[in-house]
């Protein structure tokens, strides 16, 4: 397995080597995942000690193939392989290809590391490498100032999240250090005991070695009762810990208010966007929440915050997606919005103390249709050399494969059955509805998410209609568009097929435990340990969400279908809100103001203080001394030799002091 990961570094020679390496990794990943599915025990290796100290601190770089990790292995490597293959043609004419493939391979390696990490420190290590690679790849076209700026922004915004993540990890382990007496916690941790503490030292949290407690594999049994901790834990601290972890996840998964980097990240090559949005960078954030959900189960308040941030982002991002004219940016907003759904689902699951399966289910289906949408968009961009939706149109005839596969992606994203997005979105909406019934605080966020369903369908089909429908294109390039070769078409068709069938994945026996806690509803039927159970509420929910999706598609058709181009009239009352949306609610301006005005301003002020107050004080002393010793000053002729003389003189004095002064000092203090 380690060899499979190491093999990726071979990607430096050329694209085909990268394809071969990633192909091998894909096989390895699938094999590992299938082994996990059939094995009775979880593969867990902790033999590589990163460093340890006698005080019990023990950091291990272990390998844990957890059920969630197995699912992620499939997602990362399937999408990764298809993207690398697609790159052969898409990136064929760019400069710096070895660098591109090397960074891409490192990206995938790091993501596999995240997925297989068995503790938070190792997780952070790979997580930061994922961030580094996305920094490098977003800035791939480094001569463009906008790309360089977007790359920096992505790194810095996620860095803010990362430091919160650090604190979250610290909090959890100091908080849980007091929980050693709790049998529920102890038994759950003992499934994967960390390195044992040296006997002669007091056990501390460090002895647990930061090992993840894995989510329970039984999908319908709450893996830990929140009440097990009541009264014992420092609830406020735990809640803060949960929110700090959310901070890390929000940075990576572009959740409000750390979302601003994602639209700008479109400066990278489209293939990179596909990878970042489907399988690697942003998925890491949701994956983090999912593996942390066991801890989050102890902190219902933090779980509600996560639910709220997710639900809000789902709507918030959708509104911005409505007005974007860049084909990639529309998809980027849709990613942000879908990640909001996943975050919300993990929050709801944690709140209800069930496994994070629903959110992971959506992550799984989303990976395929989102990669598909990006790669189809890439195919269009490749053919037209433009990203502006209003320069496209009527492309279905010239590019049928791209058009129809993208249609599948759009339907899946909008949540239309039988495409995969419908099932996963339905599952997480019903979960959130359950949470909202338990605590009405969640209700507004559920409603936001539901509104988001309508918006998703609306902007997705706006995009599809503007690109493909109508009889002729709106620009010269659109008239000469043509399909790419099989190297790009094959990934499209594969992803389209996966987007259709991925929704049925949980029906396959033997994989249920990969999505713990998933109450899988098909028109009201839910699979439980007792078989399929009908719940009317779930049926109503499914119909309602479907109706919203169709409404969105219908509105999109009315405004942009058949080659129509809808613009707001100049005197429309909607112009002002539209402007707010186009300017992304002015978050960029606000953050730039914070960075440039406040932080950089403070730095400049500090610089002034440093030069004139701190150093100035020293100079003041210097003036006093030099006036007192004009002779010495004259002696400073600037020649090195005369300095040398003074230093030798000083040293001789010092030596005299040491040799004769010491006994004298001894007489003073010695008694």
């Amino acid at each position, binding site marked *: 397995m380690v060899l499979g990961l190491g093999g990726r570094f071979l990607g430096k020679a050329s694209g085909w080597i990268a394809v071969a390496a990633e192909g091998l990794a894909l096989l390895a990943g699938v094999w590992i995942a299938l082994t996990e599915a059939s094995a009775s025990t979880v593969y867990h290796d902790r033999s590589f000690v*990163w*460093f*340890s*100290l*006698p*005080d019990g*601190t023990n950091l291990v770089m272990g390998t844990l193939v957890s059920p969630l990790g197995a699912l992620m292995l499939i997602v990362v490597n399937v999408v990764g392989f298809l993207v690398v293959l697609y790159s052969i043609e898409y990136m064929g004419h760019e400069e710096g290809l070895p660098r591109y493939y090397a960074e891409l391979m490192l990206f995938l390696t790091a993501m596999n590391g995240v997925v297989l990490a068995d503790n938070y*420190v190792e997780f*952070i*290590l790979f997580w*930061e*490498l994922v961030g*580094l690679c996305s920094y490098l790849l977003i*800035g791939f076209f*480094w*001569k463009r*100032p906008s*790309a*360089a*700026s977007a*790359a*920096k922004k992505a*790194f*810095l915004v996620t*860095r*803010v999240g990362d*430091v919160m993540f*650090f*604190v979250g990890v*610290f*909090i959890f382990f*100091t908080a849980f250090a007091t929980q050693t007496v709790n049998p529920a916690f102890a038994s759950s941790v003992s499934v994967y005991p960390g390195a044992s503490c040296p006997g002669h030292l007091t056990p501390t949290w*460090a002895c647990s070695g930061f090992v993840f407690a894995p989510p329970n594999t039984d999908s319908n049994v709450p893996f830990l009762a929140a009440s097990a901790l009541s009264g014992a834990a420092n609830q406020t601290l735990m809640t803060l810990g949960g929110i700090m972890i959310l901070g890390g996840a929000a940075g990576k998964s572009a959740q409000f208010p750390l979302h601003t980097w994602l639209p700008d990240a479109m400066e990278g090559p489209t293939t990179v966007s596909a990878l970042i949005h489907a399988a690697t960078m942003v998925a890491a954030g949701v994956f983090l929440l999912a593996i942390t959900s066991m801890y989050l189960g102890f902190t219902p308040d933090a779980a509600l915050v996560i639910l709220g941030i997710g639900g809000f982002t789902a709507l918030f991002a959708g509104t911005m997606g409505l007005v974007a004219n860049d084909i990639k940016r529309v998809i980027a907003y849709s990613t942000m919005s879908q990640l909001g759904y996943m975050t919300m689902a993990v929050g709801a699951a944690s709140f209800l103390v069930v496994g994070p399966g629903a959110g992971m289910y959506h992550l799984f289906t989303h990976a395929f249709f989102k990669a598909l949408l990006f790669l189809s968009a890439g195919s269009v961009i490749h053919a037209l050399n433009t990203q502006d939706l209003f320069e496209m149109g009527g492309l279905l005839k010239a590019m049928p494969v791209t058009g129809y596969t993208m249609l599948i992606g759009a339907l899946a994203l909008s949540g239309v059955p039988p495409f995969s997005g419908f099932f996963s979105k339905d599952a997480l909406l019903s979960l959130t509805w359950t949470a909202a019934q338990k605590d009405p605080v969640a209700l507004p966020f559920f409603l936001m998410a539901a509104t988001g369903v309508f918006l998703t369908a609306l902007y997705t089909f706006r995009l599809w209609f503007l690109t493909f429908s109508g009889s002729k294109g709106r620009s010269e390039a659109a008239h000469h568009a043509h399909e790419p070769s099989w190297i790009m078409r094959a990934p499209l068709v594969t992803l389209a097929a996966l987007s259709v069938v991925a929704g049925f994945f949980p029906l396959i026996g033997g994989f249920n435990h990969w999505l713990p806690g998933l109450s899988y509803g098909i028109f009201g039927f839910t699979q439980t340990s007792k078989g399929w159970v009908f719940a009317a509420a779930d049926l109503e929910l499914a119909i309602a969400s479907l109706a919203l999706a169709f409404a969105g598609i219908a509105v999109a058709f009315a405004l942009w279908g058949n080659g129509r181009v809808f613009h707001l009239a100049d005197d429309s009352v909607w112009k002002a809100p539209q402007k707010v949306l186009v300017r992304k609610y002015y978050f960029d301006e606000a953050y730039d103001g914070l*960075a440039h005005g406040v*932080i*950089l301003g403070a*730095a*400049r002020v*500090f*610089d002034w203080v*440093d030069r004139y107050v*701190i*150093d100035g004080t*020293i100079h003041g002393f210097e003036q006093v001394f030099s006036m007192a010793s004009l002779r010495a000053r004259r002696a*400073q002729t*600037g020649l090195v030799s005369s*300095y*040398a003389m003074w*230093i030798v003189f000083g040293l001789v004095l*010092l030596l005299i002091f*040491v040799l004769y002064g*010491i*006994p004298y*000092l*001894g*007489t*003073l*203090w*010695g*008694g």
Partner: protein
Amino acid sequence: MYDLSILLLIAFAGAAITFFAGAKARWVALVTSVGTLAMSMWFLGTFLNGNPLDYRFVESYHWLTFATTNGGSLAVNYTVGIDGISLPFLFLSAILSVATVIYHWEERKDAAGFFGLVALTNAGLLGVFVSLDVLLFFVFWEIVLIPMFFLIGHWGGPRRHYASLKFFVYTHVASVVMLVSLLAVVFLGQWPSLDFVNLANNSQGVANLDAANILPATQVVLFGALFFGFGVKLPMVPFHTWLPDAHVEAPTGGSVLLAGMLLKMGGYGLIRLAFPLLPAGHVGLEPVVLVIAFASIVWGAFLSLSQRDMKRLVAYSSINHMGIVLLAIALWTQLSVTAAVLLMFAHGLVSGLLFMLSGSVHHTFGTRDIPSISGMNSRTPALTTILMIGSLASLGLPALVSFPAEFSALLATWEALGWWIILPLLALVITAAFYLWMIQRMAFGPPRGVPDTAHDLPTHELLAMVLLVSLIVLYGILPFLIVTYIPHTAIFVGCHYGGPGVCPTSP
């Protein structure tokens, strides 16, 4: 048996020969520094055989005895030995001097003098880290200052005389304060000799070498003086302003050794002497130390953000990093002190690399002014790539050497101080910001201020940097290679670990 003496002999004899080797000076310097490197690697290889709490390779020879007025006597010895704290510095000093000699391979200006001073700095540094006697320690400590003074004063930039004097006066004042307070500790503590080989080694029944005889109030005063003496070197805010000036004017090799090693002497002194000697002192002054540490962290980060000169930027980031070191030392737990040593080791490699990079940027583009260079990746890809690696290492990217150190330091901070961790974390974000901003402006974007004649790194400079980069990556991925050694020290046992409360009374 005579291992450490042989090491010092190689270093000093090599330095002496280098001065008179004329055109062959660079070869002598290289052989000398490689020799010390080989010795220190041999120490690394054989170090772990032994009692974890003992100094290794100890040699002690009697030198002088003073009679004190109360009828006692005070022995001055030549005593050397190493433990897990000093060993990483030994290795680092040797590595950095090898890298410096290679980097300056084509040095033309008074080459024999230059290489001789580099070798002498290395020799002095090795002496500081192996000395276990107050006087010997101080002699080596002063020896280090002199070559650095000349390196800045003769091979430096336009304002080199001002900078070298400032450097010397600052650190010399600190040295004198340090010496006087060390001697005070010796006399008040009624030490039988100036050795500190048995310091903190209670298992051998020599507990009276610690502060048991000194009143807590006196300890606080003496600790304050020692803290000042070592802290100026570190440097700590507000006694840091010599550092940017010294760095800006110093030649590249001087900066590498200055940032890589001379700053570490301050941290080493705190760990080796100030904290273990005066437990009541550091408990009493804990708030002051912490405030200064936090101030250095935040101040260094913000100041870096406002710099235009690349070298000043790196210099201020050193203040930030050494602030984290000071914080970790102040917490005084095994984890935090290990983190401090590891971070100093990491910072030695990383800042050495970054100063080499600013030197190369300067003579490739004729300026170090960040806004006047843009898109250098188009002409100098190797330089740009290494610049990115160096910057990422300095901002604490995992898989590079600073990460395990910073993470452990933060962990210890959270455990001890809770939400105060926000300050170092804020600095962490700002550190990322100024490095990425620098890269964005210098490396990326359309080429500007990058002459077509600009050539990429010459072989010797590339070689020196690759040496450091490979160590940065190696210890980033396998930190245990160095962390394993650090706990092999006596400073964590007995009354010194956990403060004065558990100190035994003198036997």
